[in-house]
């Protein structure tokens, strides 16, 4: 509800769209969890925990879409993680901060040297200017939390001056 105001969506004009997550997952742990944002971390939970800690490597933690023309478009940010430790890696939960984000992440245990995915959707309808969005990821690593960021500069073909 609150986010509506910040982006000027006092009246609900945003529509959430689901993107096509059906991409090739070869080389990745296969089981993905699709979910929607909730107000409690437990609702976005994998439901599993691993006691042993491992190490995680991100191909990128910030995805910049650059300039995008305004429209009813859904952008998908895909983050690739790799288990570079000596124990299995488990994404415990993902918590995106935009109510319009659908998201998906690898639910399976990610073995040593294997990779996993986190995908976040963002619809840019009715948005203008530099937008930045975040998701929190929790895993069985020494660092409990990680921040994933995606940003986009939405250009408009209208002149507001």
């Amino acid at each position, binding site marked *: 509800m609150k*986010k509506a105001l910040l982006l000027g969506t006092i*009246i609900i004009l945003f529509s959430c769209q689901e993107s096509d997550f059906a991409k090739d997952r070869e080389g990745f742990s296969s089981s993905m969890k699709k979910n929607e944002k909730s107000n*409690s*971390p437990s609702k976005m939970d994998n439901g599993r925990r691993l006691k042993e800690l491992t190490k995680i490597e991100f191909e990128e933690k910030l995805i910049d879409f650059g300039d995008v023309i305004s429209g009813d478009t859904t952008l998908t940010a895909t983050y690739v993680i790799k288990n570079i430790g000596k124990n299995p890696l488990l994404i415990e939960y993902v918590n995106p*901060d935009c109510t319009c984000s659908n998201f998906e992440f690898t639910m399976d245990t990610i073995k040593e040297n294997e990779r996993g995915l986190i995908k976040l959707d963002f619809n840019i309808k009715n948005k*203008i*200017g*530099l937008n930045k969005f975040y998701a929190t990821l929790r895993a069985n690593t020494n660092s409990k*939390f990680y921040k994933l960021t995606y940003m986009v500069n939405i250009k408009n073909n209208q002149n507001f001056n």
Partner: protein
Amino acid sequence: MKKYFYYFSVFLISLNSCKNNDLQIKENYFQDNYKTKYDNLNIRIDTIVLDKVESSYLGDIAYWDNRVYFIDFRFGWVFGFDLEGNYLETKLGQGRGPNEIDIAGIDGFYFSENGNKYFFGSTNDIHIYDKNWEKIQKTSMNWGGSVQIGKGYTVKEVNPKDPSLYSLDYEHLKIKGDEGNLYLPIYSEHPEFNGLVSKNYYKEGRILAQLNLEDYSIERIFGRRTDLLMDYKYLMHHSAFSFDLNEHGKLIVANEIDPTIYIYDKDFNLLESFGVSGKEMDVNYQELKGLDIKRFQYLYFEDRPKRGFYTGVKSDITKNIIFRTYNKNNGSYDGLQIYENGQLLDDIQVPKGLKIEYTSFPYYYSGPIIDELNETITIYKLTFK
């Protein structure tokens, strides 16, 4: 998304800084002071960078018990530092464990005199901890009103006194409190009663909610915006205000576009007003003509930062001093006005984004300047010499 916009705008600001025991002193930060009363008034500004922590660098700070706490809105951590920025401790963290906080994201907080800490989530949830960081309870605010909270948009007959119309103003959620209540900024997003379509919203819309800390009910909604907003069609992107609550129970209110500072009692009866315009302020505000979301966003995100507007107010009752900060139409620095007994003492240039948040004469501390990319949190210490 919410107030992170603020941090987007400041993370790009690069300010010379230093660390802990090697404080970089910037006397008369910019050599542009002018004296209105005290020839000897001299303010030193020290830059303090908090020790690095494992944080999202999205959050805000609280001052309590001679410490500064960084509240990590994304990860739920609370990091404690001494007033020189040295790391001391980490508390909470997002999760369901006994010492964790079961919240998707922290949107607001208040540290009370008795050590209780209140953390607000996005769905009217409040998480309360005692002075030892033991969880007291997790509960929800009871708004009362004619319809269920969150359904305010369904209200058929708009009555500005109806709490159902309002929700917390998460974009400007600076919370103040006294012994038994918290005071929280609110706004309405009702389709017929909001800043994009309703002139009456500016005239009759309430701006504060009083939360009773015994039963967590909204006891009342009260306060009004400045009349200056009525001079424009719609000026929602400049309709915010900042406020402070001093030890005498007086509310000090500064509106974004209004040069006047207002002092009210808790019933919002005006007791006093004073203030002069800041310097280098472009007040050519661009109004909205009606419901145009894209133009609103353009004005809020791109036009607003270029205009002059007042950003914060803080009272030091021990010295009868009020600080007010403002955004200049200048990319490098902002303005700070210092009033004593309602009279302007000084109007100086200060680092961009500086707002006074903690007073302990002769020291005054600012809110955080967060550089998200470089993962630094900077605060400023002003010393009256």
